[in-house]
Structures are given as structure tokens and as C-alpha cells.
């Protein structure tokens, strides 16, 4: 399995170097005004989002994969 993956490596390098085969970024920088609106961020306020993750982590067994505002609460 590992050998087969190694054999594919040159192919990926070739593809990486051959820009014509790669798709173009399809949303241009000047087309991102909707995305740049603050209402489009996943969490606008880190202090508030971090606190809610702390509440959930203290009350629920599940933890992790909270995105940018996670990281554990250091509490029991």
C-alpha cells in the first residue's frame, strides 16, 4: 500500500507543477464583498464564542472541533 502511494507521488508533483490542469480559483478577490461583510464570519466576537464553548464543554461530554474559538477550558 505504501509502495503504491510512493509510485503516485511523481504524478501528484507533475499535476502540481502543471497549472493548466489545476482549476482556477473561481471566486475572484473582487467578488468577495459579500463574504467580507462582518455578518459572514462564523464568530464575530471571540470573547463571546469562547465562553459558549466553555459552557457546552462543562455541561456536555462532547468536546473538540469547535473551529477557531475552541481549545479546552482547563476545568473539571
Amino acid at each position, binding site marked *: 500500500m505504501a509502495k503504491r502511494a510512493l509510485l503516485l507521488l511523481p504524478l501528484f508533483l507533475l499535476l502540481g507543477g502543471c497549472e493548466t490542469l489545476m482549476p482556477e480559483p473561481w471566486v475572484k*478577490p*473582487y467578488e468577495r464583498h459579500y*463574504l467580507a*461583510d462582518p455578518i459572514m464570519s462564523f464568530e464575530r*466576537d471571540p*470573547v463571546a464564542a*469562547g465562553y459558549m464553548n466553555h459552557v457546552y464543554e462543562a455541561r456536555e461530554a462532547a468536546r473538540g472541533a469547535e473551529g477557531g474559538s475552541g481549545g479546552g477550558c482547563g476545568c*473539571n
Partner: protein
Amino acid sequence: MAAIDRAKIFAAIIGFWLPASLIAAVLPEERADTMYHSYSGGGVTIDGPSILVRKNVGNKLSLSANYYVDMISGASIDVQATASRYSEQRDEFSLGADYLVDKTTMSLNYTNSSESDYQAETVGFGIAQDFFGDLSTLSMRVSFGSDDVMRNGDEDFLEQAEHRRYSIGWSQILTQKLIAELSVETVADEGFLNNPYRSVRYLDPNAGSGFSYQAELYPTTRNSDAVALRAKYRLPYRAAVKSEYRRYADSWGISADNLELRYTHPLEQENVILEGKLRFYKQSGADFYSDLFPYLNATNFRARDKELSDFTSTAIGIGASYLLPDRWSLFDRKNTVNLYWDYVMFDYDNFHDVRVHDGDSAYLPGEEPAYSFNAHVVRLFWSVWF
């Protein structure tokens, strides 16, 4: 054609002056947040301040500092049932640094959390890379935490626990109005992982109530995996919806799913952003959880922590963010005041309310009503951008 070109140039200028992380790798916003937070429910109130300041040094380095306090008062159902107690205050200090090189952001952070019976230190390192015309961001983070667990009233009790977290995130702009993010995180815990005060109950024919208590005993390792997919979509008018789903499973036999939907609606004339959310959470409990064990030392491991039981929680939340007019703004900067309120309903399937035995009880052990409670969560904060 000329009109289209002008529109493109205008959009490019807007893009240049709106340094959201969606545009390119940038340092986080320079701002200070002062928050009062409160959690109240199940007989307990936990509240306190949180102050977060973030400032740039030069144009490549961003430093942050956070001071956070949990002040605990009241008595939870565990305290009422077995007279165990918790510390009254937790203080947490965090320091962080983010360093930007071209399209790569590297971050280091340190957190120290201190209670009368619990000390925790965590260090973390993260790296994020923008690529593919800045449509994609790949981020990775590792952290290591080391805890000292103590027990108030028992000078000889000292245990250790360690936590290692590994996460990967992929953020992707999909269309002009849609962005999605995939997060995966593995956590490995090792050491003393249970609460040194909490007890489990077991059937005891010699006890008046029909049951007695003994100390909890958890495994000394726990490995968990979580994967989350979230997306945000800009509606045809200026408003946004967010959806998020997370799946969780761990080596204790716990599995959980949660789903969140959020709606963000600005009122431009009033300088207000309104938000509403719904969140559903459901978990199946740990293999070694039981509300009532059949006899003393019935199993190798034992827990009666309601957070390890089968339960669901449903949350509704509303909030508003108000951009202060210039005449009220401090330091001639952008200022907002924000208020968010969440109402969370916890319904436990196999955690029973033993407080019914306080008086003359007609309930047999294990046949008490299932426990449930509702909590209010409040976040009130003022933010100023430098």
C-alpha cells in the same frame, strides 16, 4: 463594459479595505472586549468577567491577553444529594501571539487556570496557511495540558492529568455567498479524570432509603474524536444563516451529535445586528455510567456524573449588537455593546432525581423521576476596536 470594470475596481477597493480573513491571510482584529457572563440553572449560578485585549506589534505580530473568572455559588443536584462541594472561584489567564509571514499565520498560546482544588496549564501551537487564490485555508493546532487535581479538606490528595489535543481545519470559499469549514479534532486524556468529590449510588438493603454511595472511579485514559461541518450563507438580502453539525465519539462509549442553526440580521438604519439561534444536542452515555449500581464495587469503573449519562439539551438564543453612534464612542473608535441570552433545556434519560427521598418517599430506588432543568446563559459585553 466600462461599467463592469468600474464595478470590479470598486469591489476590489472594498475588498482591500475589509481585511476579513476571507480576503487573505491577515492578523486578527485589534480590539478589546469586556464581558460579564452568567450561567444560572440547576441550583447553580456561575458568573464573572472576561477581558480580552488584542494588539498588533508592527504589521506581522499580534499579541493577545485574556483574563477570565468563574464565580460559583449555589448547590447543584450532586451537592444537594451527597453534600459534596466545589471550589468557589476559577481564575484563568491566557497569553497568545500570532505571527504572520506571507500567507502563513503561526500562533502560540499559554493558558493558566487556577481553582482552590484544581490547577491547569496548557500550551498550544497552531499554523494556518491560505492557498488556492485565498479560497482555501488549512489550519492545524496541537496543544498540551497538564493538571494538578486536589481535594479540599484532604491535604494528602494530589493527582495529575494530561490532555493532548490535535486539530485540523479546512475552510473553503465555495461561492460568492457561501463559505464552509470542516474541523476534525482528536483529544487524548491520561491520568486522574474523575471528580474527586462525586459519588455513585448502589442498592443497599441495609440503608433506610434502599441505596448508599461510594466514590466514582473512572478509567485513566480517554480518547475522543470529533468532526464538525459548518457553513455560512449570505441571503439575497443583507442577512446570513449559519448551520453546523458535529459528530462526537470516544473510548468511554459516549457518542453525541449536535446541530446548530443561526440567523444574523442587521438593521442598518438602527446600527443594530440581531441574531437568533437554535441548538440541539443529544448524547448516549458512558459504558460505565449507571444511575444505580446493583451492589458495592459492582463494576471495574463507575460513574454517576449526569454529564456522562444519556441526555438531550435544546437551546434557543437571541442577541443584539449595537454600534454606538460617534458621540458616544470612546477613543473615537468603533464601539459596540452586545447582549446575548440563551435558554438551555436539559432532559436526562437515566439520571434520576434522588432528592425525592428527602422527605417520606413513595419511590423505590431507581424509580425516581428523571432529572431535568433549564439554564439561562447571559453574555453582556462592550467591544472597542483600536
